[in-house]
C-alpha cells in the first residue's frame, strides 16, 4: 500500500513537471563555458519548440554531461510526446541501468516493443535482467541478440556468463570461445573465458588467458550507434578526453583521434589533448605524427613525464635512437624506475653494442618491474637472450641469474608447464656445466 502511495506521489510530481512545460535546468555554476552554453541553448530550443526531438536532444546533452536527474525528466518527456521514437526509451533505459536496474528494465522492454530487432538493445536488456538476478530472461535476450547478429561478441559473452553462473561450465566455454573469436580485445571476455577454462581444468590455457586479460585495458562502455550519438553531444574538456579514451578502449582509434582533433580545434593549447593524441597516433603506427603531438604537449607543459615517455617510445620506433635515448633519460631522471624507459634505453644500448648499459638497465627494469605488463614479453625475451649471451662466454652465474628471472616472469604470466620445463632443463644444464 505504501509503495502505491509512493508511486502515486511520483506520478503526480511527473504530471506537475509535464504540465508546467518547463524543462529542468541544472545548476551550471562552475561549469565550463562551452558546457553551460550548449545546455542553455538546448534548453532554449525546448522552450521554443516543445517537441519530442528538442526534448530528446536536450536529454542527450544533459546525460552526456552527467546531469542525469535532469536528463531523466527530459527523456521521459520526449517519450511522452512521441511514443514511437525508440531512441528515448532506449537511452533512458541504458542510463538507468547504472542507477536503477528495475526501472531500466521497463524502459528497455518499451524500446524492444518498438524495435525488437536491434541486437545491442537485446544485449542491454539481457544485461539488465542479469543485474536483477533473472538469468532466464537474460538468457532469452542474449539468445535473440545472437540470432539477430551472430557477430555481436557481447551477446555470446552474455550467454557464457549465464551458463557459468548456473555451473554449466562446458556450455559456458562454448559460448565464451565464440565471444573470444569475435572480441579478443575485450578484457571482460578474455578474463571470463580464463575462468571457464579453469573450471573445466584446462589449466594452461586458463593461465595464459588470465595473463592476457591483465594486459588489456579495462572496458566499461558498450558502444552502439544510439549511445554513441548521445556521447557525441558532450563538449566539456573532460568529456572529450574521456570519450577519446573510450573509443580507444574499444579499438576505434580513428574515432578516438577525431574526438581529440575536435577538442584541439577549440582548445589548440590543451596539452592533455596533444598528449592523448600522441598516444592514439602511436597506437595507430603513425609514429612521426605521434612525435609531433608529444612534442607539442611538452612545449605547452614541460613537466609531463607521460608525454615524454610516449615521445621516447615513438622516436625509438621511428629509428631516431639518439633522440629517443635523450628523451628516455629525461623521463628516468624524474622516474628512475620507469619500466618502459629502462627497456627502451637498454634496447638502444644493445643496438649500439653498449652491453654494460644494456645489462644494467635490463637488470633495473626487472628489479623495478612495477606491474607495467605491456612489455613483459619483450623483457622476458631480452632476459633470455642475455642469459644465452652470458652462457656463451662462460659467465654461468650471470646466465643463471637471468634465467631464473625468465622463469619467474614465465610463472607470473601463466606460461604452460612445458615452457617451464624447458627453462628448468636449461638451468640444470648450466649447473651441470660447472
Amino acid at each position, binding site marked *: 500500500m505504501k509503495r502505491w502511495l509512493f508511486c502515486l506521489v*511520483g*506520478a503526480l510530481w511527473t504530471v506537475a513537471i509535464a504540465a508546467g512545460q518547463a524543462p529542468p535546468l541544472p545548476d551550471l555554476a562552475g561549469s565550463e563555458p562551452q558546457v553551460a552554453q550548449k545546455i542553455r541553448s538546448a534548453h532554449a530550443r525546448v522552450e521554443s519548440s516543445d517537441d519530442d526531438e528538442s526534448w530528446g536532444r536536450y536529454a542527450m546533452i544533459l546525460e552526456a554531461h552527467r546531469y542525469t536527474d535532469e536528463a531523466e525528466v527530459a527523456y521521459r518527456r520526449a517519450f511522452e510526446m512521441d511514443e514511437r521514437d525508440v531512441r528515448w526509451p532506449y537511452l533512458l533505459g541504458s542510463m538507468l541501468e547504472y542507477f*536503477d536496474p528495475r526501472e531500466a528494465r521497463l524502459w528497455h522492454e518499451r524500446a524492444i516493443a518498438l524495435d525488437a530487432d536491434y541486437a545491442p538493445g537485446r544485449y542491454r536488456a539481457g544485461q539488465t535482467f542479469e*543485474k536483477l538476478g533473472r538469468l532466464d530472461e537474460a538468457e532469452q535476450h542474449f539468445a535473440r541478440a545472437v540470432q539477430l547478429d551472430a557477430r555481436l561478441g557481447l551477446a555470446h559473452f552474455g550467454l557464457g556468463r549465464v551458463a557459468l553462473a548456473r555451473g554449466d561450465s562446458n556450455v559456458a566455454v562454448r559460448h565464451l570461445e565464440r565471444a573470444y573469436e569475435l572480441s579478443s580485445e575485450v578484457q*571482460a571476455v578474455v*578474463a571470463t573465458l580464463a575462468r571457464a577454462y579453469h573450471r573445466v581444468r584446462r589449466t594452461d590455457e586458463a593461465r595464459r588467458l588470465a595473463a592476457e586479460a591483465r594486459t588489456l585495458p579495462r572496458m566499461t562502455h558498450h558502444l552502439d550507434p544510439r549511445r554513441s550519438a548521445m556521447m557525441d553531444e558532450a563538449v566539456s*574538456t573532460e568529456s572529450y578526453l574521456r570519450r577519446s579514451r573510450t573509443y580507444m578502449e574499444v579499438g576505434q582509434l580513428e574515432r578516438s583521434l577525431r574526438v581529440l582533433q575536435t577538442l584541439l580545434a577549440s582548445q589548440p593549447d590543451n596539452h592533455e589533448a596533444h598528449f592523448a593524441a600522441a598516444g592514439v597516433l602511436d597506437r595507430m603506427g603513425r609514429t612521426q605524427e605521434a612525435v609531433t603531438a608529444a612534442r607539442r604537449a611538452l612545449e605547452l607543459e614541460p613537466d609531463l613525464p607521460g608525454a615524454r615517455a610516449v615521445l621516447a617510445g615513438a622516436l625509438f620506433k621511428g629509428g631516431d635512437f639518439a633522440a629517443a635515448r635523450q628523451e628516455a633519460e629525461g623521463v628516468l631522471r624524474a622516474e628512475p624506475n620507469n619500466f618502459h624507459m629502462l627497456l627502451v634505453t637498454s634496447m638502444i644500448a644493445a643496438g649500439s653494442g653498449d652491453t654494460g648499459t644494456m645489462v644494467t638497465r635490463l637488470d633495473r627494469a626487472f628489479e623495478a618491474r612495477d606491474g607495467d605488463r605491456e612489455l613483459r614479453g619483450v623483457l622476458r625475451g631480452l632476459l633470455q637472450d642475455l642469459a644465452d649471451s652470458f652462457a656463451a662466454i662462460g659467465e654461468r652465474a650471470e646466465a643463471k641469474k637471468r634465467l631464473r628471472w625468465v622463469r619467474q616472469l614465465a610463472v607470473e604470466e601463466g606460461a604452460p608447464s612445458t615452457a617451464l620445463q624447458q627453462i628448468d632443463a636449461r638451468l640444470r644444464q648450466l649447473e651441470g656445466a660447472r
Partner: protein
Amino acid sequence: MLALVALAACGGAEESDAPPVATDPESAPSRSVRFVDVTEELGLAVRHIPGVDEDYAMPAVMGGGFAVFDLEGDGDPDLYVVQSGEQMPYEGPRRAANVLLRNDGGRFADVSDGSGADDRGYGQGVAVGDVDSDGHVDLFVTNFGPDVLLRNRGDGTFEDVTAAAGVAGDGWSSSALFVDFDADGLLDLFVARYVEFDPDRVCLLQSGLRDFCGPAQFRGASDRLYRNLGDFRFEDVSRSSGVAARADRGLGVAAADFDEDGRLDLYVANDTDPNHLWINRGDGTFSEDGVLLGVAFNRFGVGEAGMGVAVGDADLDGDPDLFVSHLIEETNTLYENRGAAGFEDVTAQWGLSVDSVGYTGFGTMFADFDNDGDPDLAVANGAVKQRPDALIAPGRASWAIEKYVEPNQRFENLGAGRFRLAGADDFSASLAVHRGLTAVDLDGDGDLDLLVSQIEGPLLAFRNDGGEAGPALRLRVLEGRRTAFGATVEVSLGGKVRRLLVEPLGGYLTSGDQPLHFGLGESTSIDDIVVEWVGGEREAFAVDDIGGVVELRRGEGSPG
C-alpha cells in the same frame, strides 16, 4: 499520460523483478534490531581533519581509519583514531596527531598526551596485532608518507620502532593487516598501497566542475609484505614472495584460507584494477589467481572500484565468502566460494545488487547483528566525487561536504541465499562521508554495536538495541598471549557446524582485536568447539558455560 507511464513503471517494478524481500525499499526491520546513535554519550568528540581545500587533493577523501583493542587488559574496548591533517605532507608540517581513547567505564577519554601514539603523519589507516606476542596489542599506522609501527609497552604508552623494524615504506599506504602467512607463530605484516599520487594533477567532472581525481589518473603502487623475524625486526619479502609483481591500486585487504589447503591466503580489493587473490604456496611465495578463481572482476568481467573487503561464511557452508564494496553505479559484490570451481558473483541472485548501486561503499563487515547464527552485512557509504543529487542542503562546509555525504546500509541475512536491506535506524540515517567500519560489543550486552569513521567529523558509535535478544557465544582465541588471527573456529550446535574466522576486524583502513562473536540462534548450548590453528593443527575444546568471554588457548585443548 505521463502519470500512467509513471504508475505503470511503479506497478511493474513491484510485480516480480526478484523475490520481494530483496527489492522492497520499505522492508521491515530485522528481528527488532535497531542501531541508536550514542556518539555523544560515549564522549567521541575528536573530529577527523582531512585538510580539503580548493586543491581537492585525493588523499583527503580516502582516509579515516581507526582501531579497537584492549589497551590496558581490562576487557573494555579502547580506541585509536587515525588523523589526516590540515595540510598534505608536500604542503608543510602542520598536521593533526592521531588520538588514543581509553574506555573509562563507557565513556572515552583522550589519553594521547605522553602516550607516544600521537603520530603526526598524514594518516590513512591502522592495523592491530601483537607483534612480539607479549599480550599487548601493537599498532601499525598507514600514512600518505612513511608508515609507523608502534610497540605497546603495556602501560598505556607506545614506542615508535619503525626504523629498527624496517617497515616505514613510502608513498601512499592504505589498509594493512597482520597475518602469520608462514605459520611460524609470529604475525607478519601485509600493507596495501594505493597510487603514485601527483598533486599537480587537476581533475574535472564531465560537467567541467573541479573535483577529486579518480584512481585512473595515477599509476598503481605495488603492495608490501614484511616477514616477522622476531624482536620487532621484519624482512621485506614483497619481491621474493611475488606480491610486488603487481602494481595496482590497492585499498581493502583480508586474509583467510580461501582454497582450504591449510594456508592463509591474501585478498586485496583494488580500485578499478583487477582484485588480487594471492594463493599461499606454502614456500614463502604466492600465486596471484584472482582472475582464475573469479574474484578479480565482477560477473560482467569488469574491474570495479574495490574499496572495502569483508570475509564471512554467508551461506553457512563452511568456506569463506567475500564481499567487496564499490563505487556508485557499481554494485557491492558478493563472491560465493564454490570450492575447487572458484568463486561466483552472486550479488544479484542474493538480493544485494539493486540497493547498492546508488552509493559508494567503503568499510564493510559480515557480523551477526541479530544473533540468529548467520552473518549479516553492514556497509559504510560516502562518495568520492560530487553526487549529482546532493542529499542534504548545501552550505555546511568550505569544501561542500554535502555533495559527498551518503547514508549507511545494513543487510539482513535471511538464509537460503537471500539478503534484504534492513529498516531505518540511526545507522542507516546517518548522512556523512563514512569510511572505516567495524562491529564490536561496545557495551558488553551480548550483541554487536557499530563504529564508523567519517571524513571531517567524529568517529560515530551506534548501539545495537534488540540484538541481545538472542544468545551469543564470545570467544577469545589465543596463541600464546596473542589473538590467533587466521585460526578458524568450528562450533557445533544442534547438529549444525558453523565456522568463523578469527580476523582483525575491518577490511578498509580499520582494524580490531576483540573477542569472536557467535550468535547462537535458537540454541542455548553448544555441542562441540574445534579450532583449526594457522598451519592446520586442530584442537577440540569443551565449553560448559557460555556466559562471559571464553578463552581457547592453543595447546590446552585435545586433538581435534
